[in-house]
């Protein structure tokens, strides 16, 4: 039974998964912040990513959709930053990283990009709410990852690296 309580362990666990599993775990992480966006394209991307038997073409389509969503949702340079919109932007970023075909997403580490983008999304939401609450997304992610790895149908413990 693996316990995830730090970024080091989370990163190791992520990298130990095969791409399909990385995608499924990524999807769960993004779903945790999905309420922060109302861009239905992102919703569609996650639905696609969740399918166990998704084809490469479908993923490529989703990636394309995601890139559009990312670019369109970004705060323009010098504009007054609307933190809610920026939160949605980071959710789009996370979702896009999840469905990126191998070698396409130029973040050095797409699964980790998804992890960080989810945390940024939470940050932005907190800034928008301006209630000084703490960002506990990391801890939430550890829990989600733990649950994912320790349930029987997620090929936990299969180290394919």
């Amino acid at each position, binding site marked *: 039974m693996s316990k995830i309580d730090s970024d080091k362990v989370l990163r190791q666990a992520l990298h130990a998964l095969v791409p399909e599993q990385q995608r499924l775990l990524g999807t769960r992480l993004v779903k945790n912040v999905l309420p922060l966006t109302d861009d239905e394209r992102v919703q569609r991307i996650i639905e696609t990513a969740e399918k166990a038997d998704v084809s490469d073409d479908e993923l490529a389509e989703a990636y394309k959709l995601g*890139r*559009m969503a990312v670019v369109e949702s*970004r*705060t323009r*340079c*010098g504009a007054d*930053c609307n933190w809610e919109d920026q939160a949605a932007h980071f959710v789009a970023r996370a979702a896009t990283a999840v469905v990126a075909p191998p070698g396409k997403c130029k973040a050095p580490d797409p699964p980790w990009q998804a992890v960080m983008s989810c945390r*940024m999304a939470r940050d932005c939401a907190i800034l928008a709410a301006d209630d000084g609450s703490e*960002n506990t997304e990391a801890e939430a992610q550890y829990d989600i990852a733990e649950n994912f790895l320790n349930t029987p149908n997620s090929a936990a413990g299969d180290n394919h690296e």
Partner: protein
Amino acid sequence: MTQPSLEKGVNILREQIDGPVAAFFSSCVHCGMCAEACLFYTETGDPKYTPIHKLEPMRRLWEREFTFAGRIKKWLGLAPPISDEELEQWQPVVYDSCTLCGRCSMVCPVGNDITYMIRRMREGMAASGNAPQGLIGATTRAVKLGSPMGVKLATLEAQARHVKISTGLDVPFDEEGAEYMVVLSSMEVVNYPEYLEAITRIFHEAGKRWTISTEAFEATNSGIQIGVSDIAAELVGRIVAAAEKLQVKTVITPECGHAYTALRWEGPNLIGRPFLFKVRHILEVLDDLREQGLLQTSGMENDRITFHDPCQLVRRGGVVDPPRNLLNMVSNNFVEMEDHGTMNWCCGAGGGVSANEAADEIRLKAFKRKKAQLESLEVETLVTACANCRIQLEEGIEENEMEIPVVGITEMLAAHLVEHPSSDEGEQP
């Protein structure tokens, strides 16, 4: 910004006319070569985007007040004064279709530094109330809130917390006597948080003491973009005060083009005295670390990559070799665009253009120049060192359905950084 007026605008414009400006206006022979070097002209074919033409009101002022013949013409009633309508008419060409990229200044056969003049012309435009709304907003926020995008210390501190969770490393705030003080662009903080993590790891590995000032962490300078030197000076002054208070040796400007130019080249002239510290761009610092053997990387990027030179950094800033030296550390498949280095083509979004909504259409048209460059080179990844260029490149690539990811150099280096476990610290100053 105090109440603008035509009179104020003309007064300020008059003050901008110095020896170089007079020499430049005297020498222009209307050959049109500056247009052929300007991406706003090449991608639209519209002659009104000719760089020297963007200065026509300033030229008329110079002629009627600074030349003997012009003064006679004025006396004879043959040289009308500048009008409100004229300046209003000139606003789009001065702000929407000029990024201060400086390419025109490189090709003018009689040696005119047209960019120098457009920077000065904007002072008159802004003072007369003819600057774009988007820039006015950004500048007002920069002065009042410390960031044109409304980024507060809380935002930065949140990013710092992420870095700590992710790497175990602290982002040091307000450390007196540190060697480096880092300033950041709001764009980076908001859109590219990878940068903060990257430099934290790199400086830690190199054993360099660095810090961010909670009183002045904003690198961008809207005053330069809009052309209000008083505001530009105020924004520079904040960084100077913080750096001198913390007694740092070097202030590092981030992956941003104009922030470097604003602080290093304009800064001391804006505040009227030399700085007590050095100003370096992050790429210069990383290149220094590379030379000293303090920046160690492993592994190579296999993709065919090229570098987009940010204009304010390279052509107008003088930081030409460092990006290449750094890229060669992690790539053996790095090809240059045909027009590269100091003759690169602008991304189309600098100089305040990206903050100016009225310029959206022409900005994307201008990108076609970069598109042509990239298509002929057939690269798989595009690397750059300016967050604003990056946004424009990504948007342009997206709009034109090209599939080329864009990456920042610092982020790329950090991905290949050789890191030692935190138990052995390396050199400490």
